[in-house]
């Protein structure tokens, strides 16, 4: 937890990720190639953090030499990771912007199903907030304008009647098999 003088830099965010309530990765970006370069290390890190944070909604923690700010919503967990020397409030600004933007985009339904239905929008939001570790935008209103994404009003619209019937058939089949 020592802090030497921070080299002035725009590279604020080391990683950002969204996990579900079992700790599975839904989206994650690592911006520092030296930090957990392999997928295995990344997932380990995520599991570790999830285990330490999912029980208590504490907003901020310090793990494996990293400052982590986080937030949960229904069955989702949002994390922003920065170095130990990083200004915690800057990380918080990123987390808040991410959450607010998604909340607006998903019309306040920040939960796993809606998020996954609009995954393309989620990728775009993250891309507009952070670029390679640099905070690109911190105002949710701006982010939404830039992404200009319309969430599906009715996720069923694409599914044709035939498909609905098909899935109903499947369900019946399963209930019989049981």
């Amino acid at each position, binding site marked *: 937890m020592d802090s030497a*003088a921070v080299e002035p830099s725009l590279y604020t965010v080391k990683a950002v990720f969204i996990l579900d309530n079992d700790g599975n990765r839904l989206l994650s970006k690592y911006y520092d190639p030296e930090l957990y370069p392999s997928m295995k290390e990344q997932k380990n890190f995520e599991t570790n953090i999830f285990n330490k944070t999912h029980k208590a909604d*504490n907003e901020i923690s310090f793990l494996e030499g990293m400052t982590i700010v986080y937030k949960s919503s229904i069955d989702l967990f949002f994390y922003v990771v920065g170095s130990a020397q990083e200004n*915690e409030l*800057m990380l918080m600004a990123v987390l808040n912007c991410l959450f607010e933007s998604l909340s607006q985009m998903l019309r306040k339904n920040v939960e796993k199903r809606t998020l996954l239905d609009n995954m393309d929008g989620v990728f775009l939001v993250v891309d507009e907030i952070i670029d390679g570790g640099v905070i690109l935008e911190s105002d949710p209103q701006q982010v939404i304008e830039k992404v200009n994404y319309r969430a599906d009003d009715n996720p069923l619209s694409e599914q044709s009647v035939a498909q609905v019937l098909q899935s109903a058939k499947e369900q019946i089949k399963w209930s019989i098999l049981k």
Partner: protein
Amino acid sequence: MIKKFDKKDEESGSGSNPFQHLEKSAVLQEARIFNETPINPRRCLHILTKIIYLLNQGEHFGTTEATEAFFAMTRLFQSNDQTLRRMCYLTIKEMANISEDVIIVTSSLTKDMTGKEDVYRGPAIRALCRITDTTMLQAIERYMKQAIVDKVPSVSSSALVSSLHMVKMSFDVVKRWVNEAQEAASSDNIMVQYHALGLLYHLRKNDRLAVTKMLNKFTKSGLKSPFAYCMMIRIASKLLEETEGGHDSPLFDFIESCLRNKHEMVVYEAASAIVHMPNCTARELAPAVSVLQLFCSSPKAALRYAAVRTLNKVAMKHPSAVTACNLDLENLITDSNRSIATLAITTLLKTGSESSVDRLMKQISSFVSEISDEFKVVVVQAISALCQKYPRKHSVMMNFLSNMLRDDGGFEYKRAIVDCIISIIEENPESKETGLAHLCEFIEDCEHTVLATKILHLLGKEGPRTPTPSKYIRFIFNRVVLESEAVRAAAVSALAKFGAQNDDLLPSVLVLMKRCMMDSDDEVRDRATFYMNVLQQKQKALNAAYIFNGLSVSVPGLEKSLHQYTLEPSEKPFDMKTVPLATAPITEQKTEIAPVATSKLPEKLAPCRQDIYQEQLAAIPEFQALGPLFKSSEPVQLTEAETEYVVRCIKHAFTNHMIFQFDCTNTLNDQLLQRVLVQMEPSEAYEVLNYVPAPSLPYSQPGSCYSLVRLPEDDPTAVSCTFSCTMKYLVRDCDPNTGEPDDDGYDDEYVLEDLEVTVADHIQKVLKPNFGAAWDEIGDDNEKEETFALATVRTLDEAVNNIISFLGMQPCERSDKVPENKNSHVLFLAGVFRGGHDVLVRARLALADGVTMQVTVRSTDENVVDVILASVG
């Protein structure tokens, strides 16, 4: 396709993740519809999302399949669906490293970046820069310059950030955009300001003057972005640190003014910058501490955390500055965020009074199991600091530590606890038995070899001297039965120490040792056999030499000497005395758990310092016949700090000679010195044999010259001498700019300060872990005793420090620490005199008006005893 998902979804029963059972091959198969006309944006979008999702999950794409998908994707640029286009940019960025020929999209991206659709332009720039290399960058340079000064903020920001990413790759190209970045910095948009500032700093950071100018400009014009302010504070504090600027500098004023900014983020950054400044006075800290105090009662957890973490740092250096916040910190110790509570408590432990310790410890033990290892280490460090401050509290601490030791935890955490317990044991003799008992219990179930061996070593050292040594034997022998090789070997060594010191235990130890001789590991067997034979002799002197006080030579030195010996076979047996001694005995120095990582570095370097000198000197032909280097002194300054030439001297002692190494630096940029040497005039019968000059001494490049001196042979007691030194050299004036010297020069000289050689230069520190045994080992053949009155000294502490620094010997048995409120003290010192003679000093000190000192000296050589006594008197 969607059908397939739904089915799988239901089968898995999780029901909510449409991406759960994606298969790469199936998705790539689907990607074929990219080629259908007309393009179906919705379906294509869905497939692109799946591809990105798979990449994000860590799915590996082969080059061929990635390239195939990538090329199919490029067709989608024909569609005008906004989201689809944006997802294409994302795919390009994600695949930039795995697909081949990604540059094929360059023209499409360049078109989007300069097109009319503002929504596309920013993301297109970022995608384009991701796939661009240095050569291609030149081609798009014109567009980048335009984009940086574009009036649309997202375009400008994207261009600035992308340029920043490319600084690493093509600094020279990006450097040419500095004017554009400068223009962007005056934009109204806060993010553009921030990004421009960041880029400008990265381009100019090696030019301190330019950075200072830039900072001046922006502090005056007043930026709006809080992020930019944070960046400026960091730049300012870095400048302050580099220039060692005083706290009256305008930079400091700027940082302090930021404490009144309306953004909490900026206020916190400024406070944190002030707190981290080296040598900050209490008055300068006060405003920073008071804003942090305000933050302590914020409803935002992150702000409370940030504040208390920073206060914790302040408390390490300036506990008194934080006492004003004690009340606010008290409120945080029940904070639901355990990290905040832990930090608050550890801060209070540093600033609070002795009476609050029990209460705080109780509080923290209620939730210590909930916090992460990192914070547990913080707690242990706080306890360790506390034990030094309030030694009387050690029983509370010891209990707490032993509980922590039983909990689960990683290596770092356990090591911190063990170090802390060991330092408590060393500081408080009365806590020794409980401490050792806790450690014994710990090694019964310890998975860390390093810790187990460390504890065994400690048991061997301390155990035999406790009232009931027998109770430790069981714990130690258990290790021999149960553990890995390294631990077993350490356990055997520990056992031997019990046998050597306690006669009544010896028979049992010998029985156990016999069992160890059957061990499957070579090292363990060797040690057991060796100790067995030594112990059976039942001679105190042997025990002392081979069991308690091990080798004190430097390991690299021994390796080199042995190698040398094997290269030149001779009839003579190998002589241990030719091996250089270890310079800094690392153990038994106070095991302070240093909170600052930087302080650990010099410690690691120290032991090899002498080996470096040995090598340097051996490379000079004149000095080859002198034998091994015995001791090198710390550098002595022979000039004032700010003079034309800076000279310092290092004294190297050999068996019959001394070499004086003069490290000279020429601080005049219009002079070149040649044939530099330091002429020495001894006051005693020392004889200067040889000078080795430094051939050339250009401006600000240090060089060394040497003088070789023979010590008087007929009078071995003449150990101190004063040399008057004069530096002689040939000066050649030169051009300050080019460094080109004139053709001819003139001789000149420069008088240096006198150089003293004292008794300490002839004695090498050696640590005897068991002083009593070593004392008996040398015996009283050459013992002499004398009493002195030290009239000028007022306290025992002062007397002890004076003696240690005067004789340059190693204090043993922690006798350099005088207990408080005592009127008498015994100091044990050990060392080796030049030529390899062991010398031990016992000084009994009594405090009356002044300090009376009775010195007893023992050595293997009679002359040495005389030397020491003569020099003390």
